[in-house]
Each structure stands twice: as C-alpha cells, then as structure tokens.
C-alpha cells in the first residue's frame, strides 16, 4: 500500500492509469459508492422524491435570480447579529483574510470541520505558512491529513481508502496497536482530537447553507466535530461559497432534507449546527468572535458564462456515487478538489489550478445517471457537452481530431461520398477481418485503443441501402 501524498498535478492520462491499476482503490470505491448509492435510493424512495427535487430546484433557481439581494440580506443579518462579514474575490484574498483574523485574535491553533471551499483555496497550507497549527477534525479529513492526501469525494473525503489502509495510517502516525475494528480506530481519533478542541483558539468550518433572512450559518455533520468547532474555540470562522445560500428557514430545511437523503441516505443527519453570530450575554456557549467569509473564486462568472445551473448544486455527492466513471477511477484522477460529474463541470469554470482541466468534460460517457440522481435535477450531461464545445472553440482540440472531424462531416454531407466511403470501408475491413478470423482484432493508429480490449466487426458486404434498392428493383420487375 502506498501512503505517500497523491500528486494531483500529474497529467490526466497518468492519473487515470494509476487509478485504474490500483486494486485497493477499486475495492474501496466498490464498497462505498455502492452502499451510498443504495442508501440514497432507499431514503429518496421513502418520500415524494419528484416533488422534493422539483421544490429544491425551484428554490435554488430563485436564489440565483435574486442572488445579489440575498447576499446583501445575509450580510446585513450577520452584521446585525454581531458577526463580521468578509468578501473574498479570489483564493489569495480568502487566505489573507483568514490569516489576518487569526493574527488579530492571537491564534496559535486552529481546529477545522469539513469544508470543500477551504480545500479549493488551499487554506490549510496558507495558515501553516503563517505559523499556525491546523487540525482537521472530521474523521475522514483527519485521516487524509495524517496521510498527506487531498480529499477524493466531496462528502466522503477518504472514500479511496479501505479500513485496512486507514488502520495502517493510524498505526504509523499515532502508534495505534494493530486492529481493524472501526470503533477502536475511531476511539483513538477521538482521544487525540478532544485535546485539540480544548486547546484551539479558532475554529473554521464550511457551510452547507446560510439563511439570508436570519443570518444563520448551518453545518450538517454526523460526528459532532462541527458542533465543537463552532462552539469551543474563542473565534469561529465560516468559509462559504457564494452560492450556498437559502432565502428562508423553510428553504433551509428543504435543502437539509434533500441533502441528507441524497448524500448519506439519512432522514436527517446526527447534528445540524446553526450559528447566528457570536455568543450573546447570557448564552452558555458559543464563540466570542464570529466571521463569515464569502468566497467567489469564479462563481459569479460561472453564471455569466451560462453554467449557472451548476451553482444550484448542494454538494450532496449523489452524482459521484452513481457515476460509472467515478466508480472506476475515484476522485484523485480528476486532479481537482471537485471530482465526479459535478467536478468535471465546476473545475473548468471556477478558478482552480487543475492539470489537463480540458480533459475533464470528456471523462464521461454521458450516460445521464448523474442527472437522474441529482436532488436538484441539474442537467450535468448538457453542461458537459457545452464544455466540450467550449474546448473545441477555444482551439483546445488536437489538429488531428479537428481534421478527422472536418473530414467526417464533409463525407457525411454528401450521399455519394458516404456511399463510396462505405464501399471502400467494407472492402478493406473485410480483407482485414478475414486475416484475423472474422472480426477485426487489430486496428492501427487512433483506433488502436478500441482493439486493445475489444473486437470489431467489419462493415457489411452489402449495406442496408444496397439491399433496399435491390428489393425495390426486384419489385418493379414483378409489376
């Protein structure tokens, strides 16, 4: 088992090949995606799923239509509650803002609950560079922090590891005695993390949704680490992507319901922590200082570029779990913080540094399973198609592909050239097929990847149109 840090900056092809050849990854993905997909089907099946999906969709579309107003309302409410609101245009802005907050409050140690937005902007690294100690407290995130790996799933960050791998990491990093008992492993993590919670001055979390009308930031967790992150340290910072917004408390529970059922297949999560600002006089707990940092990082442009639909995403991960491509290669092969179908749509749009990002829209067979699973009915295949168009328009295709497609289009625009190409193809492919016993088993050049694992039949000796014309001729003779 290799536990060295995974290098996301490798070329796309290398990342995919590595993933396809990783047997442990295959086992881990099979176990987890199958289970999560099954639980989602059951949990969504227990309610009026079409209605719930339609309602969530409507609500998220409303959010996008009234985005600026809602953001302003959120800022006003949070401020009125005694919190501070910061706006981060780019990753560097967010890093600067959070480091600043930590400096001012004399922070040495930070505990973090799960947040993809902070992963997106590499906040941990920035904090560490500023001399702070950062401890991830979500169990999955904690494991990959120990292993020095990035998350590979937006909900289950350590999905790429089997319990055997996790035990090995704990034995190595925390001197855990050998065991495969998940309870024992969790107990070890709990023991370590409890001390960190009690000694940290600052907590940072993401935000599953923020309620504009009340200025409340909500985090949905199952481990209780979110609650401790938001209440124990003196300072609490929420990092939120601009789109994670709902207008009202009712809308929050609508999204909550869709999120829990679609991500983990639960009716509701174990914890839902709602923070509406710092501790008020008379409150028994809560942070003394509360900050909300809103992150753009390309999200506003996304709406302008016509990919606004992807901003309706509630990050449930259902599309990853049902994606047959994700199931084969896992998250790291995408080379981005966001993987799976939604990752392939978001990554080229927001400001992320992803090697071979142009390849991501093509990492899909366009089977549509993601759209069927998505609780917000996001038409991911449509956007993947449009992103492919964008790649070609931006001269991202190879010269060979371009020439091939132009040739193909030319040929298909004329009946006679189509028919002669067919005749020629039939002759050539039948000669080749005869050599290899009926099927084509080896093709040269660009088609060789096909025959590397698959046979191909030759073209028919007599096309359908030939047979059709013969039949017509025969009928005429009879008459």
């Amino acid at each position, binding site marked *: 088992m290799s536990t060295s840090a995974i290098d996301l900056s490798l070329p796309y092809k290398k990342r*995919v090949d590595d993933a*396809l050849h990783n047997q442990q990854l295959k086992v881990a993905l099979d176990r987890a995606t199958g289970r999560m997909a099954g639980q989602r089907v059951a949990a969504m099946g227990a309610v009026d799923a079409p209605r719930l999906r339609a309602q969530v969709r409507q609500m998220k579309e409303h959010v996008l239509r009234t985005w600026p107003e809602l953001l302003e309302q959120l800022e006003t409410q949070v401020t009125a509650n005694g919190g501070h609101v910061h706006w981060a245009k780019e990753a560097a802005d967010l890093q600067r803002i959070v480091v600043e907050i930590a400096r001012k409050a004399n922070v040495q140690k930070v505990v973090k609950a799960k947040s993809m937005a902070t992963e997106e902007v590499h906040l941990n690294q920035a904090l560490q560079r500023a001399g702070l100690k950062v401890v991830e407290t979500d169990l999955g995130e904690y494991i990959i922090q120990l292993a020095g790996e990035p998350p590979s799933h937006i909900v289950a960050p350590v999905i790429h590891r089997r319990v055997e791998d996790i035990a090995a990491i704990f034995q190595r990093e925390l001197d855990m005695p050998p065991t495969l008992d998940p309870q024992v492993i969790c107990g070890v993590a709990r023991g370590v993390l409890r001390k960190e919670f009690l000694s940290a001055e600052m907590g940072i979390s993401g935000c599953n949704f923020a309620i504009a009308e009340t200025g409340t930031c909500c985090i949905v967790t199952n481990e209780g680490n979110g609650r401790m992150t938001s209440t124990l340290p003196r300072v609490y910072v929420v990092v939120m992507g601009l789109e994670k917004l709902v207008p009202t408390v009712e809308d929050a529970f609508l999204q909550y319901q869709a999120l829990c059922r679609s991500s983990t297949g639960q009716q509701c999560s174990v914890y839902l922590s709602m923070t509406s600002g710092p501790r008020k006089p008379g409150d028994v707990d809560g942070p003394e200082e509360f900050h909300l940092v809103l992150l753009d990082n390309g999200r506003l442009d996304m709406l302008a570029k016509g990919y606004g639909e992807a901003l309706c995403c509630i990050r449930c991960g259902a599309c990853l779990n049902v994606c*047959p*491509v994700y199931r*084969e*290669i896992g998250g790291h092969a995408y080379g981005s913080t966001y993987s799976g179908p939604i990752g392939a749509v978001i990554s080229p749009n927001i400001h992320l540094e992803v090697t071979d990002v142009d390849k991501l*829209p*093509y*990492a*899909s*067979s*366009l*089977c*549509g*399973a993601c*759209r*069927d699973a998505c609780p917000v009915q996001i038409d991911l295949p*449509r956007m993947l*198609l449009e*992103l*492919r*168009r964008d*790649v*070609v328009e931006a001269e991202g*295709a190879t010269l060979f592909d*371009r020439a091939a*497609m*132009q040739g*193909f*289009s030319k040929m*298909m*625009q*004329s*009946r006679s050239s*189509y028919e002669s190409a*067919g005749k020629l*193809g*039939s002759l050539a492919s039948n000669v080749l097929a005869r050599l290899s016993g009926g*099927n084509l*088993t080896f093709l040269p050049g*660009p088609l060789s*990847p*096909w025959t*590397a*694992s*698959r*046979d*191909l*039949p*030759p*073209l*028919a000796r*007599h*096309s*359908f*149109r*030939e*047979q*059709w*014309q013969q039949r017509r001729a025969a009928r005429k003779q009879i008459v």
Partner: protein
Amino acid sequence: MADKRTYSSPPRRVALFVTCMVDMIYPEVGVATVELLERHGVEVVFPLEQTCCGQPAFNAGFWDEARPLARRFVDIFEPLLRTKQIDAVVAPSGSCTAMTSHFYRQLLAEEPGYPERAALLAAATFELTEFLVDVLGVEGVDAQFTGRLTYHGCCHLLRELGIDRQPRALLQQVDGAEWVALNGAEECCGFGGLFAVKNSGISTAMGNRKVQNLVRSDADVVALCDVSCMTHINGLLSRQGERCRAVHIAQVLANQVDVRPRTLPEPPAQPLEKPRRWQDTT
C-alpha cells in the same frame, strides 16, 4: 420528454431513419426493422439521401461540424412530414433518436428557421419499440426464441428518451424465451462514442462490469435497442471468449435469432477405441 405527436388513426406510412451504423455494419437490423413495421401494417419509405445525424461530432464538442449534418437531416425528413407524405420517422436506435429529437434543439438553436422545423420533426420521430408499443399499440409479437434472454437498457434510450417499459413489454411476448435477470441492467456499458477510444481504459473497465454481470446472468442473448452499445458489449464478449451475445431487439422480434438447444451428435457407428493413457505405453 419532448411532447410526442399523437395519432387519431394509426400511422400508415413512415420514413425509416436507419442510422449510419445499421446501414453500413448491421443491415440485418434494418431489414428486421422493415419487416416488423410492415408486419404491423405500416408502409416504409427509405430516403436514400440520409447519412449520419452528426452525433459523433456533436458529442466530441465539434458543433460546427455537426451542424451541417443536423440541418441536412432536417432538410431530408421534415418536408416529407410537412407535406404529409409520411406520418412519422422511425429509427432502430435510442441514441440517434435522442440526437435528432432532443439534442438538435440545442445544436440548431440559432439556425434561422430550423428550431421550428426540428421541433416538428422531433414530435414525430420515434424509436422503434416506442413506435411499436406506444403508437401502434402492438401487444403480441410473432417471435420465438429458444434460450435464455435478458435486456440491457441503453443510456440514451433510458435516460434521454425515458424508454424502458416498451422494449421489455415486447420481449416478454417472445415465445419460448427463458427470461433471466441482469444485474445493473440500467448501468452504462462504457461505450460513449469517442469516449471508448479516448478514455479506453475507463470505458473497458465499465464494459467489463457489464460483461461480468452478463456472464453471471447466464443469458445466451442480451437484447438491446442500440447497435453502438451492442458493438461495444459484443467486442468485449468476443475478445474474452464468452458465449453470450448482444443482439438488437428488432432481430429478436423479427425472428432472426435463435439459440436452439444443441442436440448431441449421433453416436458413432463403431465403438470408440479405448482411450489410451501415457502410462499404458510400454
């Protein structure tokens, strides 16, 4: 799905959109399609100008290359409909039907005059099993099959067109077939057009899952509605020496396929010479 045209009286004459793959590689599927349509009292015309609907280029992002093919397709079929020379267009493919009746909307959105014509065409373009069941109301099919049969739902058919009940209903009518269940019948086989070549590793891994499920199902034949997925599944099955084969549903329904139980050969007239073992040699 896009609103389909309804017919007060059964359609009498349809144009066959045979698709380029069936035309050039699997003419027998086209023949079976014609046979099925004619068997149910529908006259078939075949516009010889038709070539490819442009899907390969469209899916690869080459929309400028796909667009002339889309326009051409509309120019060939739409006038036949408009002038009532035909009542519908029928294709033995979920994928190509989805392309012409679904994705043309996206592709031709800004071509003057075309969106309306494409919409008219889309409403009267049907995938074969959809046409047989939903439009013609076919209940019984006169087909026999001796062997174990199962069904794979191709992605575009299932998730773009929402067609699943129709092919399954038709297959249930096939006499003598032993129906076996296929795990993950609605999962992608990994074809995905150029995806199969450009991402051949992932595509093959996906296809291998399909192969494993097919082998476990112990089916002799898996019927499906798209020759593209059929090519992919058969390519893997054949390479791996598996007995099971994917067959287009039209061929099953038109009785082109049969897996008769292999009867034992006649016993040899002379008793076989006693097999010799190496130990026996002196």
